[in-house]
């Protein structure tokens, strides 16, 4: 229960700050290495078309729902969802989102640590030094658990420092510089990359339209997975960021359309930056996540002015990673400071401490990190998305939220077409993608762990809220909700 000592809620200092916070949160390492490769592997322009359709059909409506709920309630995830569901067991939907969010951060922080390590070494000109070997360099990092834990610790310390300064002075001040710097860095690399001999092969790989791919189910599943993982739907970010909007701020244009399309634009820019480089220097484009940590350093050795380009790239890469990590952690901080007696600063220390502690196994071992990533990314994120959309679609009611919050002070009018998307289409699509992942990994440890999580996390979450809210006084307005159609 919040203490009465807590004062008026913080707000974004500017519209630009809000927009950059959303983009900074959603753009992560996946935009830089995954989008270009998945695009090239799945029909180029045809994949882009499929991705765009899913973005508008599912992700933008979903993000609009999250931002509108946050704006309407002015609360973090548990408070916002409790306002929709009423106090008690069902408010556990908010706890599901919180658990998934914190779990994701426990293995994302060590990854941010890798980007920090590479950025530092780019400034030390390590990648262009004599005898540098990218595979051995990465292997040495992974084989040094003390260093990995130190990096994880440093990242959580940076995150805690930014969050300690607050929404406007900390988070906003970081993202308004970091996100444009990331875009400028990638744009500079893209301009250099497309002018290299052999770069056209990378552009052909990524962008050639192969229309027949639109008839392949795999194209749509990959587009769906990319859209889900890159837009940050279900992380609780949009609810939290939306809860700090000012009275006259819009939700659907900035929080929905700009956020989803803007963050995907960074992936498109990365496609222009990375794949021409990869093909120009004969690197395997299927390197996946290893592309950025193993293949690209090898490129910088051979590239004229490679030391400078390595600095530009790895600084941008680190900024993409750290801005996401800061805003993702803010989700937990906002919620904990509202739901407990802790002040904001105590919540920052508490949440960052918990993430640091539970992140130690992932920092210690890459195998544990990958197992956690596979389990929570494949099933945790869709589960959290369903939790939010059940709260909006089935408890709050989409029509109620649309007329009360979404279209108030809105930059674009959202019609009734939005209601069935939020209530039926997006949640059912999440169920579908979880089923696809379960089928793909049937019988494997990842699938079993995922199923345990799918049962265990909701059970724990509902039990927690049943106990916590059972001790609290009932809230009249929230009690009487129950959908609107």
């Amino acid at each position, binding site marked *: 229960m919040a203490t009465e000592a807590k004062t008026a809620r913080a707000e974004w200092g*500017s*519209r*630009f700050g809000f*927009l950059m916070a959303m983009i900074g949160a959603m753009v992560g390492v996946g935009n830089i290495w995954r989008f270009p490769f998945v695009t090239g592997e799945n029909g*180029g*322009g045809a994949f*882009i*078309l499929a991705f*765009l359709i899913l973005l508008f059909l599912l992700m933008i409506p979903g993000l609009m729902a999250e931002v509108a709920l946050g704006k309407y309630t002015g609360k973090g995830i548990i408070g916002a969802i409790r306002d929709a569901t009423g106090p008690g067991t069902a408010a556990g939907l908010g706890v599901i989102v919180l658990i998934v969010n914190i779990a994701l951060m426990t293995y994302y922080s060590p990854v941010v640590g890798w980007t920090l390590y590479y950025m530092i070494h780019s400034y030390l000109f390590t990648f262009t030094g004599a005898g540098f070997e990218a595979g051995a360099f990465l292997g040495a990092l992974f084989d040094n658990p003390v260093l990995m834990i130190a990096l994880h610790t440093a990242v959580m310390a940076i995150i805690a420092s930014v969050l300690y300064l607050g929404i406007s002075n900390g988070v906003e001040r970081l993202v308004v510089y970091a996100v444009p710097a990331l875009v400028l860095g990638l744009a500079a690399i893209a301009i250099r990359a497309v002018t290299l001999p*052999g770069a*056209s*092969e990378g*552009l*052909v790989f*990524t*962008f*050639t*339209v*192969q229309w027949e791919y639109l008839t392949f189910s795999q194209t749509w599943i990959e587009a769906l997975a990319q859209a889900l993982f890159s837009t940050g739907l279900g992380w609780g970010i949009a609810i939290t960021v939306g809860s700090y909007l000012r009275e*006259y701020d*819009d939700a659907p*244009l*900035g929080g929905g*359309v*700009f956020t989803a*399309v*803007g963050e*995907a*634009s960074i992936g*498109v*820019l990365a*496609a222009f930056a990375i794949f021409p480089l990869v093909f120009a220097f004969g690197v395997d484009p299927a390197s996946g996540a290893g592309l950025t940590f193993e293949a690209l350093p090898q490129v910088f050795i051979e590239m004229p002015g490679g030391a400078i380009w390595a600095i530009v790239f790895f600084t941008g890469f680190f900024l993409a990673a750290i801005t996401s990590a800061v805003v993702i952690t803010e989700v937990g901080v906002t919620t904990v400071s509202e739901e407990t007696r802790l002040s904001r600063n105590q919540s920052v220390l508490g949440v960052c401490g918990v993430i640091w502690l539970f992140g130690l196994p992932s920092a210690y071992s890459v195998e544990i990190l990958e197992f956690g990533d596979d389990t929570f990314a494949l099933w945790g994120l869709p589960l959290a998305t369903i939790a939010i959309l059940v709260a909006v679609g089935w408890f709050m009611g989409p*029509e*109620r939220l*649309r*007329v*009360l919050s979404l*279209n*108030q*002070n*809105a*930059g674009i*009018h959202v019609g009734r077409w939005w209601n069935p998307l939020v209530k039926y289409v997006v949640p059912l699509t999440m169920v579908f993608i979880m089923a696809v992942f379960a089928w793909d990994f049937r019988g494997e440890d990842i699938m079993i762990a995922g199923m345990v999580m799918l049962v265990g996390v909701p059970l724990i979450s509902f039990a927690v809220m049943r106990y916590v809210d059972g001790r609290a006084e009932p809230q*009249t*307005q929230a*009690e*009487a*909700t129950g959908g*609107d159609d």
Partner: protein
Amino acid sequence: MVDTIPIDTWIGMAVAIVAFWGVAAWAMIRTLRQEDRKVELLEDQRRIDTYSPRGLSELREWIEANPDDPYRDDAIRRYNDCVEILRATDRHFYEWSESEIERLEPI
């Protein structure tokens, strides 16, 4: 080795740039301009209309269709606030005509 870029690739690149960067740039410019307009109106008259004609009309429809809804009081407050602001101010954020404002009735 690909020396020239085929037409299909140019189409793919053009679609990607227009559909993503074009839409993102449009959305950002539009929302920042709207912000400037809101700030200008707020500095001038302290309050601005909160719903478009269509948004306010749908809010009223919802209020009339849901007489027992627990959020009805909040909806009425929002509706009446907007009507009052529209009547009390000369300049509006959304495109309201004088005749539309005259026809509005508080609930």
